[in-house]
């Protein structure tokens, strides 16, 4: 009997928001966004660990809720409830409110499905729905800034999804059972474990906006509306961290150098974002950089867990409350800054038009370079003057000068990168 109730409860959590997403239905109901959350709230109250296996769905998928994922579900519900309340007023004035409500409910469904999915394919499916739905919410303002932010987010999302699809294929090639519990042990010992680890790591790092793949996050935080800003912290970022924990083979085997590199990336993300916050960034960008620092810290934690499986086994029960706290914290942070920005009537900062190349290569060293340049202005100008003396006004030589300046910039960036790495290695040692 209990099993049947649990099964129904789990199904309704996912199906109900999907049904409500149909405009003909939600337009006839009061508070559809709040109504959509109710089954999930009821599920949260149910005792035990409800689970549901659906062998006929996709390749055979399942849903479940245990004491650990309960934390993440609770966080998601809190964030969605707040977002639903915030949007209730503003949507009434919006001519496209049915479309926005549909997107809201589809994203909610994706989020809840990803939290409850007990296997890789289910998670991937719902996370895809959530990702594209969130893209719609992000650009709902239809201004140029929001569109550019959406474009950045979409590019990162597509690349991340492609990588995760490759990881899925590797996992399916290695194991017939794609449930999270079964997969960890198998993937940790598989011949493709290193490839799997890296693909999954990069995929979720792109989704979470982990340094150095944080460009979409900067753009999104600058242009998101209040409700989107709230969801930004609690949905895509928190779910990417959750996904990384679910997909990575943690607590099984030590991953040596790969784990150390991941740890290093996380640590550098923290250092880098702290430097930016304290040295040059504008007030508006603080939440984004804080997010980069927090996700960096989380990645560093994952690096430690991959290095020392025993440590992970000892502390893994803390990770889900940690994700929930991070989600809530970032949601509140993004939301409050967005509110302050709008209260003071400071318009959303228009993004510079980015070239495709700069999109891909990122500009994460740009800020460090500027900082170094300020301190090395004298040296650089002497060097430039000496170059200019040599090349005079010749056009070809001017091009040469440009390329030299470019190389100098990169030289500084690479040197700093190495120095940071060395400092980190020294600290770790």
């Amino acid at each position: 009997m209990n099993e049947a109730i649990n099964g129904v409860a789990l199904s309704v959590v996912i199906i109900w928001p999907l049904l409500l997403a149909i405009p003909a239905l939600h337009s006839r109901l009061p508070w559809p966004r709040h109504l959509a959350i109710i089954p999930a709230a009821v599920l949260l109250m149910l005792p035990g660990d409800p689970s549901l296996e659906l062998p006929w769905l996709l390749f055979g998928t399942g849903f479940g809720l245990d004491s650990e994922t309960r934390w993440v579900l609770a966080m998601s519900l809190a964030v969605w409830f707040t977002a639903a309340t915030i949007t209730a007023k503003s949507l009434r004035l919006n001519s496209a409110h049915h479309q926005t409500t549909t997107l809201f409910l589809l994203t909610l469904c994706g989020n809840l499905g990803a939290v409850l999915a007990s296997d890789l394919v289910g998670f991937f499916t719902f996370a895809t729905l959530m990702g594209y739905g969130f893209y719609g919410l992000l650009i709902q303002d239809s201004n140029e800034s929001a569109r550019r932010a959406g474009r950045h987010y979409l590019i990162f999302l597509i690349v991340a999804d492609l990588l995760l699809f490759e990881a899925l294929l590797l996992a399916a090639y290695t194991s017939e059972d794609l449930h999270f519990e079964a997969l960890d042990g198998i993937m940790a010992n598989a011949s493709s474990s290193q490839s799997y680890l890296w693909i999954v790591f990069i995929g979720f790092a792109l989704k979470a906006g982990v340094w150095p793949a944080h460009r979409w996050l900067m753009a999104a935080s600058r242009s998101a509306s209040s409700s989107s800003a709230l969801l930004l912290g609690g949905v895509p970022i928190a779910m990417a961290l959750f996904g990384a924990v679910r997909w990575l083979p943690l607590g099984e085997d030590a991953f040596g150098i790969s784990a150390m590199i991941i740890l290093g990336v996380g640590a550098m993300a923290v250092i880098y974002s702290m430097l930016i916050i304290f040295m040059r960034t504008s007030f508006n960008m603080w939440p984004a950089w804080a997010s980069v620092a927090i996700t960096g810290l989380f990645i560093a934690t994952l690096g430690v867990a991959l290095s020392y499986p025993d440590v992970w086994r000892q502390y893994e029960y803390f990770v889900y409350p940690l994700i929930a706290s991070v989600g809530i914290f970032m949601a509140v942070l993004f939301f409050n800054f967005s509110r302050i920005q709008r209260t003071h009537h400071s318009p959303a900062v228009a993004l510079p038009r980015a070239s495709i190349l700069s999109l891909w290569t990122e500009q994460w060293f740009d800020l460090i370079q500027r900082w170094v340049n300020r301190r090395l202005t004298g040296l650089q100008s002497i060097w430039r003057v000496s170059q200019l003396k040599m090349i005079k006004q010749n056009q070809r030589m001017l091009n040469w000068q440009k390329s030299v300046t470019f190389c100098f910039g990169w030289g500084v960036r690479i040197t700093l990168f190495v120095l940071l790495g060395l400092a980190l290695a020294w600290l770790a040692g």
Partner: protein
Amino acid sequence: MNWNMWFPLLLIATSLLPGLIIFSLAEERVRLRTLLNLSGALVKLALVGWMLWGVYQGHHYETRLPLLPGLDLVLRAGPLSLLFVTLSAVLWLVTTVYAIGYLEGSPNRSRFFGFFSLCVTATIGVALAGNLLTFLLFYELLTLATYPLVVHRGTEEARRAGHTYLVYTIFGGALLLLGTVWLYTLTGTLDFATQGGFLDDLDKAHHPALIIIFALLIAGFGVKAALVPLHGWLPQAMVAPAPVSALLHAVAVVKAGAFGIVRVVYDVFGVEFAAGLGVLGPLAWVAAFTIIYASLRALFQDDLKRRLAFSTVSQVSYITLGVAIAGPIATIGGVIHLVHQGLMKITLFFCAGNLAETLGIHKVSEMDGVGRRMPWTMAAFTIGAFGMIGAPPVAGFISKWYLGLGALEAGQEWVVIVLAGSSLLNAAYFLPILHRAWFRKPPEAWPHEHDFGRKETAWALLLPPVVTALLALGAGLLATAPFSPLEWGKLIAEREFYRP
């Protein structure tokens, strides 16, 4: 008396007879024509359902009629042929409903529906063909039945497209005939083997000749399957009315070409024998090149149907790629894409037709805000587009999953990179359309708007894309349900690779 031998013939007759009667009907006999079309399609569907159950239970359905000394006309229903037959029968019904709505009030409808039925007859014949000769006969009938549909509008552009189509397909047919005759002189038979090919016993001295025959057959089928560089006719043929485009791209012509390639590799040469000859590697490369090249071309098309046409060129090659990878899992991926691509692509073409008929929209650049004006049509389009990209849970995800997994199983990791690249390009040319449709502001006036009252368009135009979009979604969501394309694909792979 064995009733099973009549079923393949009945399947052919259910579209042939209505077609022949419709030719003789006057233009104004709309109701009778509609009745004939729909009843033929429904009877065919019922027969297909019966035969699917029968084949699943292990029954054999074969019609053999003497044609030439030593050569029979053979119609045989096996798992592979029924997969194609089911697709054609289901989509024929849907396309007929759509065509009735689309062509309402336009001239030459009897001619159109007559050739339309002939076209489906030929496709069913191609699917059921039990030997290469029967295949060739129906394949050429398909060319002849489709040409009047391509030039149906009678414009100069349509005539040019029809001319190009004929030149390409007749050239392909000639190559096919040459390869078939040469093969017959070597083997003395053209009957498709039920498991593996029929060339295993041939002397090794014939292997160079077999490689050339393989190339001739693949080139012959490659014209209709739109393998680059033999694809030139397909983007031009999009001048045809939307139901014809849907038929060309999703049901009949390109599918017949792809199905021919499947037949040649599995039932003429046999996968293992073909792999031993070393012909599958180059075939895989050609398919991979087609996938990427056509996706790149699609990226730069502003004409919606032209963009969809290049997308077809790319997507149909997934079938060839799946076959050429030569493994049971990739085989599943290839053959189920025959169905999945059909469902998704027909949805997209129906939607393109709806946009053209209702609002006069032909170009991607004219689609700003169309999602608000035609939400159901664009919702169906969105499902189809996401399926093409390979996003779960739409059917395209299942195809790409099995193709990728099959490539890993066969040790051909480069295929996974091709699939990823193709998905990326698909996203690059489909997502901007969705962005325009859903998130841009609609213009003050549409290019050429028809009034359908409170409805977004006529029911006959709206229902088919919604149904096919739901089928595409269902084929992905319920992939492991009994009788799903995936389960049927597994049955085909099992019979091909795991011999008793």
